[in-house]
């Protein structure tokens, strides 16, 4: 059911294809494409990473959090502040990641004793409290007027693009590992019945902290990359509720607790945002709302569910054809 017991591995040709895609993506900046493509690429990689990060705790372990913007903000500000202090921006990324990790443990420990809706609601509270507090720490964060980064080093997009790509690949490998390991099984067991998981020896709090912490690290790094790319950050944005919501929308649209769902979700998110926003400004959010309603009502498993359905349909058509064919031997 979860691809674990069946120890299903990605088939060879798919692996090859993925490697080709990666090579193509890496070479993009060097073949002189329109910088806007790189811009969209950067955003997509960033969102895929974010969306997959949310999926670890939210999808696999079923703990819906509305507070991931806190990690993003911490990562962004760690980069912003240190960079302004003269530290190489790439060296700031681990700092942001650690900060986010520390924060995830700090809030995770008390909050993971809460169940279901309480946890979700607590994360709304923590996220918003962080935003307001950061807004008031004007000396450190620049308050509502935000923080600008040194722009002296030039504006080349390539480093950001490649870093985001690297982050995305690392995240996908991580999620793939989790999915096929006992960690994934533990997280799914927690989602199903926390008490039962605990009674079977799953240290539920530790595993939730692990999932939360991994997510935090990824989101923290992504925040740092964002700050590097945007040159300007501000609490209402990087700690914003909207950001937390987007993080959760993407895996939902794509399909929870899967490897590729969050990827699809993020791609759709960026593409929709890009095309709709530019062409139909007033329709953008409306479309989003309608899309959400439609997905929830008709394809709860997201795009992955839709693909699954399609695949089953095709397979059954195929099987039918096979059955009717004279040689008629059915594959299992």
């Amino acid at each position, binding site marked *: 059911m979860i691809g674990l017991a069946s120890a299903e591995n990605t088939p060879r040709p798919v692996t090859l294809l993925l490697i080709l895609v990666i090579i193509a993506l890496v070479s993009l900046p060097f073949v002189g494409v329109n910088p*806007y493509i790189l811009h969209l690429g950067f955003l997509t990689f960033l969102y895929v990473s974010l969306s997959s990060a949310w999926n670890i705790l939210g999808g696999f372990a079923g703990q819906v959090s509305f507070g991931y913007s806190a990690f993003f903000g911490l990562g962004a500000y760690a980069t912003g502040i240190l960079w302004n202090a003269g530290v190489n921006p790439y060296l700031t990324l681990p700092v942001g990641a650690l900060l986010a990790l520390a924060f995830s443990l700090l809030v995770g420990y008390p909050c993971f004793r809460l169940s279901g809706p309480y946890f979700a609601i607590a994360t709304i509270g923590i996220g918003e409290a962080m935003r307001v507090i950061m807004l008031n720490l004007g000396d450190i964060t620049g308050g509502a*007027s*935000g923080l*600008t980064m040194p*722009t002296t080093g030039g504006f080349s997009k390539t480093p950001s693009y490649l870093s985001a790509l690297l982050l995305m690949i690392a995240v996908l490998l991580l999620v793939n590992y989790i999915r096929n390991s006992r960690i994934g099984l533990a997280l799914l067991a927690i989602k199903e019945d926390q008490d039962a998981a605990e009674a079977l020896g799953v240290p539920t709090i530790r595993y939730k902290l692990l999932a939360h912490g991994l997510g935090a690290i990824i989101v923290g790094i992504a925040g740092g990359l964002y700050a590097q790319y*945007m040159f300007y950050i501000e609490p209402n944005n990087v700690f914003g509720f909207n950001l937390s919501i987007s993080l959760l929308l993407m895996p939902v649209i794509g399909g929870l607790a899967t490897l590729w769902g969050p990827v699809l979700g993020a791609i759709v998110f960026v593409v929709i945002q*890009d095309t709709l*926003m530019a062409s139909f*400004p*007033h329709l953008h959010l409306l479309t989003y709302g309608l899309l959400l309603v439609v997905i929830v009502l008709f394809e709860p498993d997201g795009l992955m569910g839709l693909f699954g359905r399609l695949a089953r349909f095709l397979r059954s058509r195929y099987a039918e054809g096979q059955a009717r064919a004279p040689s008629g031997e059915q594959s299992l």
Partner: protein
Amino acid sequence: GAQEPAGSETDSGAEPAEGPQEILIGTVLPLTGKESRIGNYQLDGYELAIEQWNEKGGIYVKEFDRRIPIRLISYDDETDQAKTVSLTERLVTVDNVTALLGGYTTTLVFAQSVVPEKYGVPYVNGGGAATKIYDRGFKYVFGTLSPIEILAKTEMDFLKEQIDAGNLPKPSTIVLLWENTSHGKDFQAGVRAKVEEYPDYFEILLDESFELHASDFSALLNKVNSLEADLFLVDAHLPDYILMHRQYTEKGMYHKFITYGARGPDPAAKDALGAATDYVAAAVWWTPDLPYPQVQQFNQDFMEFTERKYGEAKPPQWYAAVTYEAARALFTAIEQAGTLDRDAIRDALDNLVLEPSILPGQRLTFSDSGQALNPFVVVQNMPGGETVIIYPEDAKTGEPVVPVPAK
């Protein structure tokens, strides 16, 4: 995305005689979302300027020796920072605009103005006043809004005059509230600077910030109420101004002088608050009552423009006036540069002297940082919905009422 990059100067070398068919100008404004109202006002200002230039056939570009019409590409960022950056990127890299006009609210201008700097595209805005926007050493970013510090200082100078005239006690006690943004901070800095300059004139009892777009001010106002200060000096954006002043009035509060920084005479506020806005004072970048002929002309043009656009003539507000000036500054600079080369336009903006300007002081230039430094005027709402200019002396259209009569 498959548009012909008509305004691109990169192909100018290939086809020297022809030149582009249009000059593409881009802007990203909040047309929906929290700041949409003002975003749309600002768009009006840009559009009016463009319409006027296009009536003449466009901008005269010496390089091609003809007038080239202007086309504006405007996107809506829904008052969202990430989107404003994305869309500005798009204007520059996909739509290939020659120059950019700015967006609205400080934070959005902060965020989007990185993009033109990145690509070396001239950018003139009428929506960001925070000095920090211009402090970054950017070379392509210009703005027509003078710093808020000057706004606060202008008001304080006016108040000192009133104290000298015996209309206010000496020292006058102050409650100072400011929104927790760079806009608010600049205001606070201006007030504090003047309090230090005239120590025996002013005394601050409360100096506090509040969150932008707050949902409720009653607790804060309770605190203010208990202090019984003389002067109520606030810096707020329109929605906060409306909410706070409404709750202020509900509580039956009173101060001898009330200001909400740059807000006060806004028609939206008058609609929402009714007579409660009487005697509220504001220092503004611009008002339609400025006694200059070019302002009268602009007022009339603007009314005609809105009549055409909305089927209803609307009197101009400062939001539209400053963006109108921003667009005029940009177009004039292009004309002076005589080419569509972005660096040349930038240099022209740097040296620009726009005269007569509709802004106070009647002359627009950009300082070294790129920000205009025009003076402010202080206005006060009078019963009956009229607003008069009460300071400085040379622009005065009425007498100030200080202290404000008690209800």
